[in-house]
């Protein structure tokens, strides 16, 4: 059975300028012990999707009536959309779901030492006593590669370097041994050696007790290193999803190809860096048809993609792309 099922998630925000569509008709499932990578350009709705899984979006968020999010925890199933207040979610998730937020500073209260915050949440969510909670916190700080963890335990967030702060946050999120980890850009501030170490720790926890991870990142190499499956988002929609090997080796959507193309390659330092052409449109002016069509260099004027929304078409087993069936690569 899956850990979480997200079906037809659509989220809009009420703003002074009007309604902004942040996520549109997104569906996916995650099994225990599975790692799902979520990638896509800035503003594609990754963080809003992540926050929706715990109903943590701000009050101006409107969820479409047809959307369903079902969590299957040891304590029983949870209908996330039916939760009314953020407090309900707190109670439901206990220590079973952890989220690493994209905003590192926002995750630590500035006037409380990081150790105190780690211990407090362990006391709330586990049966550990104070001494055990402290020992475990220091052990977790050590496991994410923080030197002198006992000293760091007594420091405030502002006294840590960017990467240490991010690691402390990861240590805190993993210390309750969650069943589901939602990690939003968790390694952006880490150097590559520490990043590799942190990714190993996450993979160990996946293997040890079947933690499932939704891993949001813009770094496709990190996805290649960690994820089983990947979903590529743009302007709130899933453009392509499938086994990570398939999607990276045989990208079926022009958008995925554009992302791969924009990566700086180490084997050719003279190659120019190529961004995807054009600007991300204002969220108030959503393109018709395929939302990517105005920036798609592969389309001819007058194509179907300008007016019709392409379905998610299966291009190989378990590998889907938002293209019309006649455009599946390798088709006659």
């Amino acid at each position: 059975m899956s850990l979480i099922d997200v079906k037809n998630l659509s989220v809009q925000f009420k703003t002074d300028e009007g309604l902004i569509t942040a996520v549109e008709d997104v569906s996916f499932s995650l099994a225990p012990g599975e790692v799902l990578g979520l990638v896509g350009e800035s503003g594609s709705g990754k963080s809003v999707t992540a926050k929706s899984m715990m109903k943590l979006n701000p009050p101006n968020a409107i969820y479409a009536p047809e959307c369903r999010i079902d969590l299957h925890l040891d304590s029983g199933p949870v209908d996330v959309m039916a939760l009314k207040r953020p407090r309900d979610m707190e109670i439901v998730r206990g220590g079973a779901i952890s989220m690493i937020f994209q905003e590192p500073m926002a995750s630590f209260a500035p006037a409380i030492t990081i150790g105190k915050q780690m211990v407090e949440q362990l006391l709330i969510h586990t049966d550990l006593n104070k001494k055990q909670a402290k020992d475990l916190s220091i052990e977790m700080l050590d496991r994410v590669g923080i030197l002198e963890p006992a000293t760091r335990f007594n420091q405030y967030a502002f006294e840590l370097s960017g990467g240490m702060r991010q690691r402390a946050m990861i240590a805190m999120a993993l210390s309750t041994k969650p069943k589901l980890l939602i990690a939003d850009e968790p390694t952006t501030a880490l150097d590559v050696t520490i990043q590799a170490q942190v990714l190993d720790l996450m993979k160990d926890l996946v293997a040890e007790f079947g933690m499932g991870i939704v891993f949001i990142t813009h770094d496709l190499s990190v996805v290649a290193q960690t994820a089983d499956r990947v979903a590529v988002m743009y302007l709130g929609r899933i453009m392509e999803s499938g086994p990570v090997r398939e999607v990276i080796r045989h990208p079926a959507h022009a958008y995925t190809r554009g992302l791969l193309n924009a990566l700086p390659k180490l084997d050719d330092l003279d190659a120019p860096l190529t961004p995807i052409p054009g600007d991300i449109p204002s969220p108030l002016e959503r393109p018709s048809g395929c939302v990517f069509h105005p920036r798609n260099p592969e389309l001819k004027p007058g194509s179907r993609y300008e007016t019709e929304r392409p379905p998610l078409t299966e291009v190989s087993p378990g590998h889907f792309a938002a293209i019309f069936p006649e455009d599946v690569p390798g088709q006659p």
Partner: protein
Amino acid sequence: MTNALIKTENLSVEFPLGGGLFNKRTLKAVDNVSIEIPQGAFVGVVGESGSGKTTLGRALLNAVPITSGSASYDDGEEQFDLTKMSATDLKAYRRRAQLIFQDPYAALSPRMTVRDIIAEPLDVMGLTASREETDTRVREIAAKCRLNLEHLRRYPHAFSGGQRQRISIARALACNPRFVVADECVAALDVSIQADILNLLKSLQHDMGLTFMFISHDLSVVAHTCDFVVVMYHGKIVESAPTRELFAAPKQDYTKRLLDAIPSLDPDHRIRA
């Protein structure tokens, strides 16, 4: 040969470590660093998390007290001794040297519109004579950073992480600085905007003769943008070399370990640390 814009000798920065009143331990975040940054250079700083990269950058911007050693700035028109700065010096130096932040969330005031955020340094420093001039300047720099007019009227909370970083870059560049410390400034950006911003920073380097200290943990990015790379470990510079040389033939063990840990895009080539 171009002149050194920034020059340090045995620069150290120490922080007090907690502990008792009588047990004053300190932490040497930057430990005897000697570095020269030529005018117009794009210098990458890489290294372990906590190795002192941000602190070094902040010391060069005079945003953190220098404990010992020397540090100076000289752009041919103005000179500063960064260890002896009066309040007037500091004000003048702010126009010349700017920071692009690591954390786009902490950097932007939530109660100001994007236009005002970008305009603030211009107003504070009195660099523009009228509101019209400020507006023109804001629009110019915003366009360079791919922000449109509609964005300028909005508040930062309505932007995603990557969009916010473009705002803070525009803000840092609004006063036409000569020296920019970019601290993990593309870490929060997606690959496409990252490519775009890196191309932008490179073109600013060439068109405006800007000098960059580019702090990043992303070695592929550093390899593509920097002319020169400095590797830090435990507060010290352990290796520095022209980019190609460093990537082709790293000399120090730590540099080798760093290069070996670069994640591969090949899912069948998974590494363990």
